[in-house]
């Protein structure tokens, strides 16, 4: 049988080594803030010219999936998402680490990532051609509402002060508009400054807003970075497996969400994580624990963001429209190799695609032992390194990482300044996450809105454009439920006094 042949091809010693090496390299790269999967894959492209297309794909896919997982490390241990996909992992991962459960969070993240990766790869294997239709069903207006859905999480993250959180969100949205507008080409909010023309680079802003405040607070006291309890040794695998089993529905739902969002070109792992987090919080029995170290939060985001890897390959391989920037690099490499993407890839040249998909499965499974070992090592290093070495090391990493994103020293300065502003704002009750959500989702929301408006106006049907399309209505319903659902339930189920708190 052909499927079996492809599976065996994927398991050849060379492919096995490529998958293993790729996952290790990817995990390390992803855990360093500023080093992205895109960059790692781009550097590798020339090497893959001399390889079989399937092996090249396996190597690049393994690095990519490892990097998305590796982003969880710095999110949990340093409150800094190593990749944008891990933004929502900071919400609960870092509080867990602060409470002395960093090792548990790391293991949970590993299990969740493997789970998400497998689900994403399974969809890619079985349903890729029909699912590619999802990417086409999503028009500008759906992207707009999806971004609004992501923004609605600001309310949940407001920590009791909704107005300040919303103001922070607006600030983030405005920050996203700085520079040359991506579609309309106007130069906005630069005030004549050359430095700002390129806009605020998202990853460097993430590093600044999340990591710099942590560093600023670390140097201020002699206290340990993370609380260390006596049992904070080992990987706590049994405990993590038990929690994962209990959270299996959460894991599955988040993985499916991740796959679906991954299919949407341009949406990416950060939105997938945010949507999955929002849904996990909405359906949880104890939503008030979210943001304070709920394991379910880490599980949701980490399974969702790894599921986007498989999901993102669906439009890339079926439509030739890359799902994410790393997919774009991989697509370029494939074109150069003479592989024509399209639905035919899943029939006529099936051996390449199916060998690759099995390779992706293999890489994802290898992520479990690799992740557990590297994760344990990373955690024990972070808690063992004396502060006088930890702080400069992390600070140095933020500098080199930020520089490397666009080879720009201006980005480094913006990162430091933005981080300091973030620290000051934090002192006054404006937390970083709403600002970051605004910054990340701003351009998607704006482009979707402007495009939908233009098309709607041309058809002379603006209301129908924004409120008359089935997928849009479904997303709007989800927004309403996640914003007002809990309070509606409470209103009906409890006495009025209790709802006031």
């Amino acid at each position, binding site marked *: 049988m052909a499927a079996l042949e492809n599976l065996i091809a994927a398991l050849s010693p060379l492919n096995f080594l490529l998958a293993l090496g790729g996952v290790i390299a990817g995990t390390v790269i992803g855990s360093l803030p500023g080093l992205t999967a*895109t960059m790692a894959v*781009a550097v590798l*492209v*020339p090497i893959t*010219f001399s390889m079989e297309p399937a092996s090249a794909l396996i190597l690049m896919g393994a690095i990519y999936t490892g990097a998305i997982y590796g982003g969880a490390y710095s999110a949990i241990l340093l409150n800094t998402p190593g990749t944008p996909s891990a933004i929502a992992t900071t919400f609960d991962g870092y509080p867990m680490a602060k409470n002395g459960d960093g090792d548990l969070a790391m293991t949970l993240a590993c299990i969740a990532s493997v789970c998400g990766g497998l689900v994403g790869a399974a969809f890619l294997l079985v349903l890729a051609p029909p699912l590619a239709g999802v*990417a*086409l*069903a*999503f*028009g*500008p207006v759906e992207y707009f509402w999806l971004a609004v859905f992501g923004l609605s999480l600001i309310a949940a993250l407001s920590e009791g002060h909704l107005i300040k959180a919303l103001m922070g969100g607006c600030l983030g949205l405005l920050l996203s508009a700085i*520079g*040359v507008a*991506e*579609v*309309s*080409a106007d*130069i906005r909010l630069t005030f*004549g400054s*050359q430095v700002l*023309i*390129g*806009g605020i*680079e998202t990853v460097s802003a993430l590093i600044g807003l999340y990591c710099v405040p942590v560093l600023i607070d670390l140097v201020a006291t002699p206290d340990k970075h993370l609380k260390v309890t006596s049992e904070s040794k080992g990987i706590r695998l049994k405990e993590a497996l038990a929690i994962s089993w209990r959270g299996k529905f959460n894991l599955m739902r988040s993985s499916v969400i991740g796959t679906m969002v991954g299919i949407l*070109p*341009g949406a990416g792992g950060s939105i997938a994580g945010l949507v999955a987090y929002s849904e996990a919080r909405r359906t949880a029995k104890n939503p008030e624990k979210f943001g304070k170290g709920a394991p379910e939060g880490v599980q949701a985001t980490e399974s969702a963001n790894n599921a986007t890897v498989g999901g993102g390959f669906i439009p890339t391989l079926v*439509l*030739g*429209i*890359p799902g994410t*920037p790393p*997919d*774009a*690099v991989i*697509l*370029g*490499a494939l*074109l*150069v190799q*003479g592989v024509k993407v*399209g*639905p*035919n890839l899943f029939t006529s040249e099936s051996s390449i695609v199916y060998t690759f998909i099995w390779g992706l499965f293999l890489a994802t499974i290898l992520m479990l032992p690799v992740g557990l070992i590297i994760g344990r*090592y990373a955690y*024990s*290093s972070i808690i*063992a*390194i004396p502060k006088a070495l930890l702080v400069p090391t992390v600070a140095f990493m933020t500098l080199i990482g930020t520089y490397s994103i*666009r*080879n*720009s020293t201006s980005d480094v300065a913006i990162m430091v300044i933005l981080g300091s502003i973030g620290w000051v704002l934090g002192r006054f009750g404006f937390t970083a996450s709403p600002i970051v959500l605004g910054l990340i989702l701003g*351009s998607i929301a704006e*482009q979707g809105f*402007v*495009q939908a408006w*233009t*098309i709607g*106006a*041309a*058809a002379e049907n603006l209301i129908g454009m924004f409120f008359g399309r089935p997928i849009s209505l479904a997303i709007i319903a989800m927004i309403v439920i996640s914003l007002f659902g809990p309070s509606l339930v409470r209103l009906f189920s409890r006495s009025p006094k209790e709802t006031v708190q």
Partner: protein
Amino acid sequence: MNRLTRISATLAAVTVAAGFTLAAPACADEYPSKAISYIIPFGPGGESDISARHQQPYFKEMFGQDLVISYKPGGGGAVGWSQLNSMPADGYTMMGINLPHIILKPLQKDVGFKTEDIDGFFMFHYTPDALVVKSDSKFKSVQDLIDFAKENSGKVTFSGSGKGSANHLAQVTFDKLAGIKTTYVAFKGTGASVQALLGDQVSAQWGYTSVGATHADKVRLLAVAMEERHPSFPDVPTFKELGMNFVSGAYRGIAVPKGTPDDIKKKLSDAIGKVNANPDFRKKMEADGFALLDVPADKYKAFIDEKTPGYVEAAKEAGVLE
């Protein structure tokens, strides 16, 4: 301090790994003696990236050195170009350039670079503008589309990549030549613009011939803005054949930081020219819908001067320039 030892061990391992992948020692005084950094001022996956990726293996094969491709996206290319001249001018750094971008951006506002500051040394191809529809579109010819647009002013929607871009200028020029009014919807990059076309979000797309090549089974080209028909699309008429004097597209090339020695520039220009002349390379590029072009270093300036007026006029028409 056992941990520290382990950390040092890891770092040692990284160092070894680093040494491992180091390029072969650069000892020859022959240029190029080490890898050349090739910066794409856009994100991956666009036409500039794809063409650089096509050049990469041939350059390596012919000159023994790697082209290391990296991305510096932002501001529709402005981030990269505004920093180009502050990069080392030693012949080991070069950056992709695009027309009409480098002509129009500096005219719009101060974007940190001037057209004449860009030291281009080779323009290697162009992607002709093409009017693209989905395979199952009701528009079978350009005339179908014009007829429909005449009766439904503004209702025909075109997706395209960016504003003030080649796609946008094509839409404006076409509207003027055909005497119609259509709506242009700007997307971020060709990929997103194709996605909108395939998803029936818009009626048609202003793209390039390369779109027709990459998505051959799902789209049709109604016409191309070339002097003669494209070899990969012998059945697709040019706008000239349809009575519209419309030949345009996006041109791509490479520039070096100002101050790069002339002899090195000459060598680079020759090298890219040789890649461009490779029959195998030509075949691949043409199959992907690119139209090859040879504008070496000494003809670069004249080329820009020749192209500028047309772009500026169309941009004024489009309202991108005052």
